[in-house]
């Protein structure tokens, strides 16, 4: 069985985020990056399947500049078998559809039985790439998996609104996007880290994938016009006293401001 895991490198959760000079994205110089937390769960799900089924191959795929190598090596250290790195300035500025097209081209070459991806990325929060990728490949998919089993077919418990869960069964090939917390993500053991030195990272360009001119900023249908920190409000007033007093004061305020 072959599993493809889509990984995005995003700013580390502890990184200090500032808007860049152009006001269109964050300042990416000198900040720490990590594998998107949702994708970490996706990778762990794949590795758990590999632990159970001998002969399973896990291929991680990522798009981005040189720094992405570090995330791919982390994935290899955790136990993935090999990596594909789409490293090409022509991919910069791709929207979800452009990203999905690149991943679809890799998936067509790899023909995986199963694709895992994080439900969304920690930076864009669009939750669109996974379903778009499945659609481009013409395979079934499900999203926000909180548990996963494979007994012949794939059974997924997925999270719905209001705490409800839905159980979905899919035939392979298929795509599953994962919710954080679905599993406890392992860390790379030293044995894994040393083994990763010998695992290949296959570097591709957009042209290698036959997508020249079809992805990247120029082809994107969604563009970020402006990124900014919302202006601070007028300030809050904290009401104190017993519950009855606070409720009384609150009602008085609402009336005073003519909100009712």
């Amino acid at each position: 069985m072959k599993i493809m895991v889509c990984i995005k490198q995003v700013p580390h959760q502890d990184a200090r985020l500032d808007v860049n000079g152009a006001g269109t994205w964050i300042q990416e110089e000198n900040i720490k990056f990590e594998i998107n937390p949702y994708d970490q769960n996706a990778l762990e799900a794949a590795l758990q399947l590999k632990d159970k089924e001998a002969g399973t191959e896990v291929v991680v795929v990522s798009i981005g500049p040189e720094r992405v190598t570090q995330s791919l090596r982390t994935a290899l250290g955790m136990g993935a078998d090999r990596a594909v790195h789409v490293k090409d300035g022509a991919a910069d500025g791709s929207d979800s559809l452009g990203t999905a097209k690149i991943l679809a081209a890799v998936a067509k070459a790899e023909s995986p039985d199963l694709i895992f991806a994080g439900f969304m990325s920690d930076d864009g929060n669009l939750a669109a790439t996974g379903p778009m990728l499945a659609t481009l490949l013409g395979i079934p998919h499900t999203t926000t998996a909180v548990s996963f089993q494979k007994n012949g077919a794939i059974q997924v418990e997925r999270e719905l609104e209001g705490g409800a869960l839905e159980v979905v069964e899919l035939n392979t090939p298929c795509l599953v996007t994962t919710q954080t917390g679905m599993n406890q993500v392992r860390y790379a053991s030293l044995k894994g880290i040393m083994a990763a030195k010998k695992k290949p990272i296959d570097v591709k360009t957009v042209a290698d994938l036959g997508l020249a001119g079809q992805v990247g900023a120029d082809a994107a249908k969604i563009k970020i016009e402006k990124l900014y920190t919302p202006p601070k409000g007028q300030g809050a007033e904290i009401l104190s006293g017993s519950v009855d007093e606070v409720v009384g004061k609150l009602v008085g305020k609402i009336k005073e401001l003519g909100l009712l």
Partner: protein
Amino acid sequence: MSSTGDARPFDLLAPTPEHALLQGTLREFVAREVEPQANEHDRSERFNHALFRRAGELGLLGVTLPEEYGGAGLDAVAAVQVCEALSTSDPGFALSVLAHSILFAHNVSVNGSELQRKHVLPRAASGEWIGGLCMTEPEVGTDVLALRTTAKRDGDVYRITGRKTFITNGGVDEKTLGDCFIVYAATEPERSEGGERARRRASSEPKAISSFLVEKGMPGFSLGQKWKDKAGMRASFTAELVFDDVPVPAENRMGEEGEGTLHMMRNLEIERLTLAAMSLGIAQRSVQVMVDYANDRKAFGKPIREFGQIQRYVAESFAEWRSARTFVYDVARRIDLHGSGQRLDADATKLVATQMAKRAADAAMQVLGGYGYMGEYVVSRLWRDAKLLEIGGGTLEAHHKNISRELARNPSMLRD
């Protein structure tokens, strides 16, 4: 197919992709598994054997050991990373890991025979065995050459008699001895009554010291008293070990008779450097804690970080920590684990880092005031732990002596 190679700019703290990955693993391991148990094991003075085995599973006990024996075959920088990271959370546990992996396993790796390496290293790297180094005796510390434990040849065995004390990992609990130890003992051949031996002892000439691997289960080898109520490092187990005419097979002697002193010297650089690395971890955590507290705590209507007195503690501690860290990692990258040549700097790193860490922990306690003095806050533990590093693995005074002597012998060290 092609490989991207490594185009990362030089990073002193993680010079290769493997070091960078190790850094990530250590960060996660410490946050998820070490930190939650640290206070409790300090309070109860218990060694966490399960966590030790978990460190073995992750490969953290065999960082410098050869890959063919279950290690990672990495360098001194990696060993420093491990000791530093563990000490940001639990210096007591870090000390157990260091005593096992550096004082014991790395020593066997460098000084042991092929057969001994094959026997010991895979068990040490996995954490199946816990080991330690027996040097100090009840009446002999820094003047190690005056040790009194003896090993007398008796056919195919040596009979070892004596007592060793302050042995980290001497046991895993009150009743259970550690698994394997390097024991330094005097192997002078017996001479006639009042002969050569007595003459040498009287004239305090150096004895012939040899190294032996002594394993749990050998007759006459037992756990003596456990040292309780230590000021710090309470999550490591410190014990006295008793050798009562223990028959140790001759094949358990490391190297030749009389090579014990050489073995000690060969391992000193990495020992001192990793102990210095522990101090870095203590200082880093101390700075983190004081900065967080100084931002949150208010006095006279503003955060205390706005007061000059507090700023001095924070800034001095930060700058001293960063300086020591750069020094330790720079020496680490130059140390050849199978050679020597960094003795002076290894002594100097420990001399400077241990005192720096004690000052940083003290500053953190001062910034936190009454809260810092309370047991449930981590700084009082760090403050207690920091002190040991000025004593164990070479006292400050031993470093003073070594550094001064080395500079007198080799003044060219000061010219480049």
